[in-house]
């Protein structure tokens, strides 16, 4: 589903955000992306949804080559992805259901199917009762659930979550994390960037650790190597 091959990402000021990063993610996986701020987690995320292009190497996502992707194909790639951020990125002047429906409207979905699909994902994230609430009337955890519902409404193959629990208290964090696990259990690939190591340690999911733009640890690869020894 995702394949990074010797990926480099440099910026015009000479800084290198990623250095020779290689990994791949198969169908159905849940992957943690860890590391300090500025280690390269967000850059990997931005390459995954084609917000940025690699300076070297190859990034493949769900059959698309991000390195050579035409501008017209970027929207097509994004419709196969769901993206969630630390700051939720909801529209303040729209209700929960309008925020979710927005994602369908702008992709030209059939109008008569929108309401049912919106209700289905809001139920999935446990917010069917708050569909008419505005973001300011909801807690952080609830807002993030709305954002996740919006990410899910197009039935993405891959869900990208960039510090989804960064602004949430412990209880909300657990709830959102559990929701992401449920989504993964439904077959969706989840890539979650986080520096919440407690969360990572609680589970047995694959972990990729970044430091200064380099991949320094990949539990899949390193454990296989350890077993081989």
């Amino acid at each position: 589903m995702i394949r990074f091959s010797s990926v480099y990402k440099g910026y015009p000021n000479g800084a290198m955000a990623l250095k020779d990063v290689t990994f791949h993610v198969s169908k159905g996986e849940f992957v943690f992306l860890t590391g300090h701020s500025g280690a390269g987690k967000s850059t990997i995320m931005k390459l995954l949804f084609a917000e940025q292009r690699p300076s070297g190497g190859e990034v493949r996502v769900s059959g698309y080559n991000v390195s050579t992707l035409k501008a017209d194909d970027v929207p097509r790639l994004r419709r196969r992805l769901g993206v969630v951020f630390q700051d939720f990125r909801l529209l303040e002047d729209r209700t929960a259901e309008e925020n979710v429906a927005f994602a369908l409207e702008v992709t030209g979905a059939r109008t008569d199917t929108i309401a049912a699909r919106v209700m289905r994902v809001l139920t999935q994230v446990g917010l069917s009762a708050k569909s008419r609430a505005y973001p300011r009337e909801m807690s952080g955890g609830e807002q993030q659930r709305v954002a996740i519902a919006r990410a899910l409404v197009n039935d993405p193959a891959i869900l990208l979550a960039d510090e989804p629990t960064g602004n949430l208290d412990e209880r909300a964090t657990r709830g959102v994390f559990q929701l992401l696990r449920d989504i993964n259990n439904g077959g969706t690939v989840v890539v979650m960037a986080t520096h919440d190591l407690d969360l990572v340690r609680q589970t047995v999911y694959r972990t990729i650790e970044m430091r200064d733009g380099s991949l320094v640890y990949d539990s899949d690869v390193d454990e296989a190597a350890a077993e081989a020894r």
Partner: protein
Amino acid sequence: MKLLSREALLSFRRAPLLSVLSVTTIAFSLFTIGLFGLVAVNLREALRGIEERVEIVAYIFRGTPAETIAIATQDIAAFPEVSDVSFVSEEEALRRARAELIEFRDAYRDLQVNPLPASIEVRMKEGHRDAGTVGRVAQRLRNFGFIDDVRFGREWVQKLDHLRNLTGLVGIVIGLAFAAVAVVIIGVTIRLTILQRAREISIMRLVGATNWFIRGPFLLEGALKGLLGGLLSLVLCYAGYILFRDNSGGTLSGLIFFGPEQMVLIIVFGVLLGLGGSLVSVGRHLRHV
């Protein structure tokens, strides 16, 4: 499509002052073009009436034999540019002078000898009534030995021609200046809207909206403002036209207004202005959102 128009209309509510400003600038730019256009149209209409009468008068030396004149008349009538040739005898000339120049009636009545020469009047075919062709035909007439002098209203035909061209030119120059201002103002309006909605646009991008889908409402907004501006300018032009016509004391009662094609042209130009302004702005600013 419903979403598209809803988003486009929303901007009128969000920034009513700026929207009104853009519509009025477009309207004024087209109003200027329109007013000068009206003058040009009416001048052309007046010129057409005059042009139909464009004729060359060739005065004939006294004593030229009638047969010579008759043969020459046939020759001249065969010129490709000439539609009609008629001979005016000395007596006919005097009779006309008496009828038309009432002020000098007494003077003509007391004449012992007819001082007026006979002449040939040459009318031009349509499409050959411009100053250049008329001049060439006049020159050919001069080459006939029995022709004393050739007159045609070259100067005032040319003057009217110049006036018409000048009016059109002035209208276009001033109108284009206004149009440039309109494009800039629309550009600024669209830019403000884009900045205002940067968050919304970035989210649209994120969930996979195509660029044209994002641009659509902005372009529609511009086109809509252009349409309104065009309509408003026509209303202004018509008001100006009525005002002129009815306060001229009847001398301008024959004044005409634009035909349907010209009105459509003005509105289309307005839509293009609006569309142009938003295209420039959308192209420059949407990338940075």
